[in-house]
């Protein structure tokens, strides 16, 4: 089996288990107020960490490059209350244009 297929199969199986773990283990669980406060923070915390790593790093290094321009453009679009798809297209276009020019 090639390296690609090893990755596809092993990563696929592990991911299926990770995704099923919470919902299977918890059954029809009703969270307490304290648990709700924690759960409410999971999304903003995970999303902001993902964005930071995707935009400001490359491998194990910090890297400030054209992606930051794309994120800045997305911020402007969000401040102007643009819908999600417009935000994405603006970020993509700003990154591509900056790369072409610099």
């Amino acid at each position, binding site marked *: 089996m090639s*390296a*690609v*297929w*090893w*990755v*596809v*199969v092993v*990563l*696929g199986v*592990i*991911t299926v288990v*990770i*995704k099923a773990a*919470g*919902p*299977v283990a918890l*059954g029809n*669980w009703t*969270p307490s107020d*304290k*648990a709700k*406060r*924690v*759960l*409410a*923070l*999971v*999304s*903003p*915390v*995970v*999303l*902001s*960490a*993902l*964005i930071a*790593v995707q*935009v400001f*790093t490359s*491998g*194990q*290094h*910090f890297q400030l490059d*054209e*992606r930051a321009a*794309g*994120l800045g453009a997305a*911020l402007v679009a969000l401040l102007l209350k643009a819908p*999600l*798809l417009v*935000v*994405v297209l603006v*970020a*993509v*276009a*700003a*990154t*591509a244009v900056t*790369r*072409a020019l610099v």
Partner: protein
Amino acid sequence: MADANYTSARTIRLQAIAPVATAAFLFGISFGAVATTAGFGIESALVMSATTFGGAAQVGSAAVLAAGGGALSAILAGVLLNLRYLPMGVTASTAYRGPWYSRAAQAQLLGDETWALSRTPDGGHDARLLLQAGATVFVVWLAGTAIGVVAFKDVSVEAWGLDMVSPAIFFALLWNQLDSPRTRVAALTAVAVALVLVPFTPAGVPIAVASLVCLMGLVK
């Protein structure tokens, strides 16, 4: 009247799902294009999109392979990047009904965008939105992957700025969630934790550790 209400609720869901699905389609195309550079064919790319079904982990592990890393480091990167589905599955768990195998199956449709989209202010999820958006994104994700592998084989993801598709989706979803000082502090803390860990830990670890910042919620 009941009919009209039903239709409008469905229309609202469709309006919420459509932009996320379109963005996921673009993201799928960029994964397909990246996958070809890592030696994926159409079958392996599609199987990965259907099972791993997580853009960051798929792009991350393909990037490790493309950079000449071995299967083991690619798997490790992917697993670590998907570890966030553990706490995410816990919050989504409140929306799933039925016996364990049905819940396990529903949980496979979990994805960052649809999970964030269906979030309700109390930390729970709109069950119908979570599943319908999940199923829609699953289909367009596979379609995007196939088109990316076949039609965008020699296209540079970076030249077209397609590597910014997913951070921009995440940013737009995050933007609507920064609704309290506590949320904003937690988000900024998570950014700091993740960035501090990047030089010292393998891919995925910074995000997994940063997700623990949600424990700030234990303090009233």
